[in-house]
Protein backbone atom coordinates (compact mmCIF):
# COMPACT_ATOMS: atom_id res chain seq x y z
CA UNK A 1 0.00 0.00 0.00
CA UNK A 2 1.44 3.33 -1.00
CA UNK A 3 2.07 5.81 1.70
CA UNK A 4 0.80 9.33 1.13
CA UNK A 5 2.82 12.29 2.17
CA UNK A 6 1.11 14.75 4.55
CA UNK A 7 0.82 17.24 1.65
CA UNK A 8 -0.86 14.70 -0.60
CA UNK A 9 -3.21 13.66 2.19
CA UNK A 10 -4.11 17.28 2.83
CA UNK A 11 -4.76 17.86 -0.87
CA UNK A 12 -7.15 14.92 -1.04
CA UNK A 13 -9.01 15.99 2.10
CA UNK A 14 -9.44 19.61 1.04
CA UNK A 15 -9.69 19.21 -2.74
CA UNK A 16 -12.92 18.82 -4.76
CA UNK A 17 -14.43 15.29 -4.84
CA UNK A 18 -13.67 14.58 -8.49
CA UNK A 19 -14.22 10.84 -8.10
CA UNK A 20 -17.73 11.37 -6.74
CA UNK A 21 -18.52 13.71 -9.58
CA UNK A 22 -17.18 11.24 -12.15
CA UNK A 23 -19.40 8.56 -10.59
CA UNK A 24 -22.37 10.92 -10.78
CA UNK A 25 -21.72 11.63 -14.46
CA UNK A 26 -21.36 7.92 -15.24
CA UNK A 27 -24.65 7.17 -13.43
CA UNK A 28 -26.43 10.00 -15.26
CA UNK A 29 -25.12 8.85 -18.65
CA UNK A 30 -26.15 5.21 -18.09
CA UNK A 31 -29.54 6.20 -16.67
CA UNK A 32 -30.38 8.54 -19.54
CA UNK A 33 -29.17 6.08 -22.19
CA UNK A 34 -31.26 3.26 -20.66
CA UNK A 35 -34.31 5.51 -20.33
CA UNK A 36 -34.07 6.74 -23.94
CA UNK A 37 -33.57 3.18 -25.16
CA UNK A 38 -36.72 2.00 -23.38
CA UNK A 39 -38.81 5.03 -24.30
CA UNK A 40 -37.93 5.29 -27.99
CA UNK A 41 -36.68 1.74 -28.62
CA UNK A 42 -39.38 -0.23 -26.81
CA UNK A 43 -42.33 2.07 -26.13
CA UNK A 44 -42.55 4.43 -29.11
CA UNK A 45 -41.34 1.87 -31.66
CA UNK A 46 -44.39 -0.37 -31.19
CA UNK A 47 -46.77 2.46 -32.00
CA UNK A 48 -47.84 5.42 -29.90
CA UNK A 49 -51.32 5.43 -28.39
CA UNK A 50 -53.59 8.21 -27.30
Amino acid at each position, binding site marked *: MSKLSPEEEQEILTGPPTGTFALL*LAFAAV*FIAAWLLLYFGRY*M*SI*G*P*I*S
Partner: protein
Amino acid sequence: MLVDSLEKRWVAVIGVMVAVMLGSILYTAFAYQAHPPGNVETVDSTRLHLTEEFREDNLGVTTRPDGSVLITFVAHRYGFTPNNIVVPAGKPLVFRVATPDVLHGLHIPGTNIDTMVVPGYISEVNAVINYDEVAKHGDLKADGSVTVPIFCNEFCGLNHHFMWNKLTVLPAF
Protein backbone atom coordinates in the same frame (compact mmCIF):
# COMPACT_ATOMS: atom_id res chain seq x y z
CA MET B 1 -27.80 29.99 1.94
CA LEU B 2 -24.58 28.13 1.47
CA VAL B 3 -24.79 25.39 -1.16
CA ASP B 4 -21.73 23.25 -1.64
CA SER B 5 -20.36 23.22 -5.19
CA LEU B 6 -20.79 19.43 -5.37
CA GLU B 7 -24.45 19.80 -4.47
CA LYS B 8 -24.83 22.39 -7.21
CA ARG B 9 -23.35 19.92 -9.68
CA TRP B 10 -25.74 17.20 -8.46
CA VAL B 11 -28.66 19.55 -8.98
CA ALA B 12 -27.41 20.51 -12.46
CA VAL B 13 -26.94 16.92 -13.58
CA ILE B 14 -30.31 15.82 -12.22
CA GLY B 15 -31.86 18.88 -13.88
CA VAL B 16 -30.41 17.78 -17.21
CA MET B 17 -31.75 14.23 -16.69
CA VAL B 18 -35.24 15.50 -15.89
CA ALA B 19 -35.10 17.91 -18.85
CA VAL B 20 -34.14 15.09 -21.24
CA MET B 21 -36.96 12.83 -20.01
CA LEU B 22 -39.62 15.53 -19.90
CA GLY B 23 -38.42 16.90 -23.24
CA SER B 24 -38.75 13.47 -24.86
CA ILE B 25 -42.24 12.99 -23.45
CA LEU B 26 -43.35 16.46 -24.57
CA TYR B 27 -41.78 16.00 -28.01
CA THR B 28 -43.58 12.69 -28.63
CA ALA B 29 -46.81 14.10 -27.16
CA PHE B 30 -46.84 16.95 -29.67
CA ALA B 31 -45.18 15.25 -32.65
CA TYR B 32 -46.90 11.84 -32.42
CA GLN B 33 -49.88 12.58 -30.14
CA ALA B 34 -48.57 9.97 -27.71
CA HIS B 35 -50.36 10.30 -24.40
CA PRO B 36 -52.47 8.14 -22.09
CA PRO B 37 -56.01 7.57 -23.40
CA GLY B 38 -58.19 10.21 -21.78
CA ASN B 39 -61.60 9.76 -23.36
CA VAL B 40 -64.41 10.22 -20.84
CA GLU B 41 -67.73 9.15 -22.26
CA THR B 42 -70.52 7.54 -20.33
CA VAL B 43 -72.97 4.87 -21.43
CA ASP B 44 -75.76 3.01 -19.68
CA SER B 45 -74.26 -0.47 -19.24
CA THR B 46 -77.62 -2.07 -18.57
CA ARG B 47 -78.89 -0.89 -21.98
CA LEU B 48 -75.63 -1.31 -23.90
CA HIS B 49 -77.13 -3.79 -26.38
CA LEU B 50 -79.88 -1.28 -27.17
CA THR B 51 -77.55 1.61 -28.01
CA GLU B 52 -76.92 2.44 -31.66
CA GLU B 53 -73.16 2.07 -31.41
CA PHE B 54 -72.95 -1.15 -29.40
CA ARG B 55 -75.91 -2.99 -30.94
CA GLU B 56 -74.68 -6.41 -32.06
CA ASP B 57 -75.13 -5.65 -35.80
CA ASN B 58 -73.04 -2.51 -35.49
CA LEU B 59 -70.07 -4.10 -33.75
CA GLY B 60 -66.89 -4.82 -35.69
CA VAL B 61 -64.55 -2.97 -38.00
CA THR B 62 -65.51 -0.01 -40.20
CA THR B 63 -63.36 2.34 -42.25
CA ARG B 64 -64.03 6.02 -41.66
CA PRO B 65 -64.04 8.63 -44.44
CA ASP B 66 -60.71 10.02 -43.18
CA GLY B 67 -59.04 6.62 -43.68
CA SER B 68 -58.87 5.67 -40.03
CA VAL B 69 -60.34 2.35 -38.93
CA LEU B 70 -62.96 2.18 -36.20
CA ILE B 71 -63.16 -1.01 -34.14
CA THR B 72 -66.19 -1.27 -31.89
CA PHE B 73 -66.57 -4.23 -29.62
CA VAL B 74 -67.95 -5.35 -26.30
CA ALA B 75 -66.00 -6.95 -23.47
CA HIS B 76 -68.18 -9.21 -21.36
CA ARG B 77 -67.86 -12.17 -19.05
CA TYR B 78 -66.02 -14.15 -20.50
CA GLY B 79 -65.14 -13.00 -23.99
CA PHE B 80 -65.12 -10.23 -26.53
CA THR B 81 -67.75 -9.68 -29.24
CA PRO B 82 -67.25 -9.89 -32.21
CA ASN B 83 -64.97 -12.88 -32.11
CA ASN B 84 -62.18 -12.25 -34.63
CA ILE B 85 -61.22 -8.68 -35.43
CA VAL B 86 -59.25 -7.95 -38.61
CA VAL B 87 -57.34 -4.66 -38.83
CA PRO B 88 -54.61 -3.26 -41.10
CA ALA B 89 -51.14 -2.44 -39.80
CA GLY B 90 -49.73 1.07 -40.19
CA LYS B 91 -53.14 2.80 -40.28
CA PRO B 92 -54.72 4.88 -37.52
CA LEU B 93 -57.01 2.64 -35.49
CA VAL B 94 -59.67 3.74 -33.03
CA PHE B 95 -60.73 1.07 -30.54
CA ARG B 96 -64.02 1.76 -28.75
CA VAL B 97 -64.91 -0.78 -26.12
CA ALA B 98 -67.65 -1.01 -23.50
CA THR B 99 -68.86 -3.60 -21.04
CA PRO B 100 -72.37 -4.58 -19.99
CA ASP B 101 -71.30 -6.27 -16.77
CA VAL B 102 -68.14 -5.87 -14.68
CA LEU B 103 -64.68 -4.31 -14.94
CA HIS B 104 -62.56 -5.78 -17.73
CA GLY B 105 -59.18 -5.04 -19.30
CA LEU B 106 -57.90 -4.92 -22.84
CA HIS B 107 -54.35 -5.85 -23.65
CA ILE B 108 -52.88 -6.61 -27.07
CA PRO B 109 -49.32 -8.02 -27.02
CA GLY B 110 -46.81 -6.33 -29.32
CA THR B 111 -48.67 -3.02 -29.09
CA ASN B 112 -49.11 -0.33 -26.46
CA ILE B 113 -52.87 -0.94 -26.44
CA ASP B 114 -53.71 -1.57 -22.83
CA THR B 115 -56.73 -0.07 -21.12
CA MET B 116 -59.40 -0.76 -18.54
CA VAL B 117 -63.00 -1.24 -19.63
CA VAL B 118 -65.11 0.21 -16.85
CA PRO B 119 -68.88 -0.35 -16.59
CA GLY B 120 -70.71 2.84 -17.47
CA TYR B 121 -67.88 4.23 -19.61
CA ILE B 122 -66.66 3.83 -23.18
CA SER B 123 -62.93 3.16 -23.40
CA GLU B 124 -61.33 4.67 -26.48
CA VAL B 125 -57.76 4.01 -27.59
CA ASN B 126 -56.16 5.49 -30.70
CA ALA B 127 -53.24 3.46 -31.99
CA VAL B 128 -51.16 2.54 -34.99
CA ILE B 129 -50.03 -1.10 -35.04
CA ASN B 130 -46.44 -1.83 -36.00
CA TYR B 131 -46.60 -5.01 -38.10
CA ASP B 132 -43.03 -6.17 -37.32
CA GLU B 133 -43.56 -5.89 -33.57
CA VAL B 134 -46.91 -7.70 -33.67
CA ALA B 135 -45.37 -10.46 -35.82
CA LYS B 136 -42.97 -11.22 -32.97
CA HIS B 137 -45.90 -11.99 -30.66
CA GLY B 138 -48.43 -13.69 -32.91
CA ASP B 139 -49.02 -16.45 -35.46
CA LEU B 140 -47.74 -15.50 -38.89
CA LYS B 141 -49.90 -16.96 -41.69
CA ALA B 142 -48.86 -17.70 -45.27
CA ASP B 143 -50.84 -14.70 -46.55
CA GLY B 144 -48.74 -12.41 -44.35
CA SER B 145 -51.42 -11.77 -41.75
CA VAL B 146 -50.56 -12.10 -38.08
CA THR B 147 -53.00 -13.22 -35.42
CA VAL B 148 -52.40 -12.03 -31.88
CA PRO B 149 -54.54 -12.60 -28.82
CA ILE B 150 -56.52 -9.88 -27.09
CA PHE B 151 -56.47 -10.49 -23.36
CA CYS B 152 -58.59 -9.30 -20.50
CA ASN B 153 -56.03 -8.23 -17.91
CA GLU B 154 -58.37 -7.21 -15.11
CA PHE B 155 -59.69 -10.01 -12.93
CA CYS B 156 -63.37 -10.21 -13.86
CA GLY B 157 -64.57 -13.47 -12.36
CA LEU B 158 -63.93 -17.18 -12.01
CA ASN B 159 -63.40 -17.72 -15.76
CA HIS B 160 -61.29 -14.60 -16.29
CA HIS B 161 -58.43 -16.74 -17.59
CA PHE B 162 -60.65 -17.93 -20.47
CA MET B 163 -61.43 -14.38 -21.59
CA TRP B 164 -59.52 -13.68 -24.78
CA ASN B 165 -60.12 -12.97 -28.43
CA LYS B 166 -58.23 -12.87 -31.72
CA LEU B 167 -56.91 -9.81 -33.53
CA THR B 168 -55.70 -10.42 -37.05
CA VAL B 169 -53.32 -7.77 -38.37
CA LEU B 170 -52.93 -7.43 -42.12
CA PRO B 171 -49.58 -6.19 -43.46
CA ALA B 172 -49.39 -2.54 -44.51
CA PHE B 173 -49.60 -1.96 -48.25
